[in-house]
């Protein structure tokens, strides 16, 4: 089912959470709403679900205007951050809940068969008789997903689905959700503040800031061409430098960075730690190593430039470098943005 948001607005008391957001999600697509807390991403998700009502604008499910359809009739599957499983029901009863309260009468046999099917889908065979308090966090989240899928929703909505789990379980569940999505092909929208999660899982990433969409595109598009300094910053570690452009070229130390299309004047230059290198000589920014942090994938150097600015850069694991060493930070890639 294709979903379309048309100029949706939401205000809480005096705080405008969502400013005229328009968004299209194609049928079968897996889309991430990514943004810092307070960016309005959860509010948008809850409006799609019908748990909040939009103050203005429209939400369409296919050709149908769903803006005023109440939650219980909207046919969405919603997975909550803290699972929201019914603690007094067994896993099987939780999954069966939607079918039992449905206006469409189903006989017990049909419900049991469907529950068994869903338990198999979420790889929890044999745990149907347990209570939510007796299973792990990752298992609870899978029960929550099975429960949401049990009502054959038109669209699946997930609110920070892996936020409360530890890193390893999180990565596994992410891959697994991707597989389930491929298998069922259900239109899915999920909210996260974790850029790694969004990039790992989604077909398309929608980045939000202060209630507005600041960029949307495939993970490749947003990673390679961040539309603004905010997106650049939000997607990963960066170093920011102020520099001046003259004749389409910015100068940073004795490095020359092409800045086509920028008028002469001040700009901000953003450099990811992996865009930088460390050498004893050459063109770049003169700096002194303050500290070296070792990580599985390589070494991160914390350096201070001659003007006292802190810079972080990643170098290969075999690089020989230690604190107090002097050298030059070389620049392989850089992004130039107008000064904010």
């Amino acid at each position, binding site marked *: 089912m294709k979903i379309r948001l048309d100029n949706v607005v939401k205000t809480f008391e005096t705080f405008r959470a969502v400013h005229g957001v328009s968004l299209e999600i194609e049928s079968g697509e897996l889309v991430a709403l990514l943004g810092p807390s307070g960016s309005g991403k959860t509010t948008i998700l809850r409006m799609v*679900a*019908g*748990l909040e009502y939009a103050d203005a604008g429209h939400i369409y499910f296919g050709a149908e205007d769903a803006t005023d359809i109440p*939650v*219980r*009739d*909207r046919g*969405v*599957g*919603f997975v*909550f951050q*803290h699972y*929201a*499983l*019914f*603690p*007094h*029901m067994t896993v099987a009863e939780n999954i069966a*809940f*939607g079918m*039992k*309260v*449905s*206006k469409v009468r189903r006989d017990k046999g049909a419900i049991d068969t469907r529950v068994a099917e869903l338990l198999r889908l979420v790889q929890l065979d044999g745990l149907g008789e*347990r*209570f*939510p*308090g*007796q299973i792990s966090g990752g298992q609870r989240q899978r029960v929550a997903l099975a*429960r*949401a899928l*049990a*009502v054959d929703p038109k669209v699946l909505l997930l609110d920070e689905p892996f936020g409360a789990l530890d890193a390893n379980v999180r990565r596994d569940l992410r891959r697994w959700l991707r597989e389930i999505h491929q298998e069922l092909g259900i239109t899915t929208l999920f909210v996260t503040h974790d850029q790694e999660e969004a990039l790992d899982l989604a077909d398309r990433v929608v980045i939000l800031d202060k209630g507005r969409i600041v960029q949307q595109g495939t993970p490749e598009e947003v990673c390679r061409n961040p539309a603004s300094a905010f997106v650049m910053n939000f997607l990963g570690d960066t170093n920011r430098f102020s520099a001046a452009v003259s004749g389409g070229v910015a100068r940073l130390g004795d490095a020359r960075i092409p800045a086509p299309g920028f008028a002469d004047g001040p700009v901000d230059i953003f450099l990811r730690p992996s865009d930088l290198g460390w050498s004893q000589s050459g063109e770049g920014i003169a700096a002194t190593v303050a500290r070296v942090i070792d990580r599985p994938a390589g070494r991160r150097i914390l350096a201070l430039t001659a003007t006292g600015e802190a810079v972080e850069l990643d170098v290969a694991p075999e690089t020989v470098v230690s604190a107090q060493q002097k050298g030059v930070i070389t620049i392989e890639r850089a992004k130039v943005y107008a000064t904010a």
Partner: protein
Amino acid sequence: MARRILPGFPLALGITLVYVSIIVALPLGALVFKAASLGFEDYWRIVSSPRAVASYRVTALSALAATAFNLVFGMALAWVLVRYRFPGRRFVDALVDLPFALPTAVAGIALTTLFAENGWFGSVLAQAGIKVAYTPLGIMVAMAFTSLPFIVRTVQPVLEDLDPALEEAAQTLGGSDHSIFLRVILPLLTPALLAGLSLSFARSLGEFGAIIFIAGNQPMETEITALLAFIRLEEYDYQAAAAIASVLLIAAFLMLAVTNILQARALRYTARG
């Protein structure tokens, strides 16, 4: 024994056990001992006398009715206090504890004044042909008044802790308000309701001060068991008083046992497996 992190266990245990023995167990023991000093036949004659049986009936039925009334009204009150914000909410919240704070005799006199045939409520009810003061209905009113806080105060914290996401989840799954209340909210409130219910019922069984003013105290009709025990005491018939009191004691014990079993069943899901 494993080493404990917090010190003072033997001392704390000793003090509490001595305290419980002196304050609770000793008087109850004396009561049982006094009742037991009667032979079984005398005991049975006293506790099964028509006047005593009539007093059990009126006490138990009134207590049941008062508890049922409080169950509905107390839950509604707790619901409103937790779920809605309105001017005067804190005031109403404080008012709930008033029946605890008020001397029960004062409550009894106030209720009698209101419900007497020339009182504010009584005169209106008399026109509708309903008599409250000096009838079992009056006993019920007094019991409901003094035991109201139990249900409200046991349900309130549970309702406050109820995750709103549970109701939202039930809504997204297509549940109507009716089915969400019956299948999600009520089962989660059940343990608290049972606890409140048993406290409210036990208090109603034992209530004395508030009732004797409004009940009229007609033997066989509006005489409660606690009053009958008191009358026997005044007649210096301590053994009979103890025998009648022991019936209340046994009833209270049985009821606490039943509610504990029911509560354990309702809380089955919290057991770790």
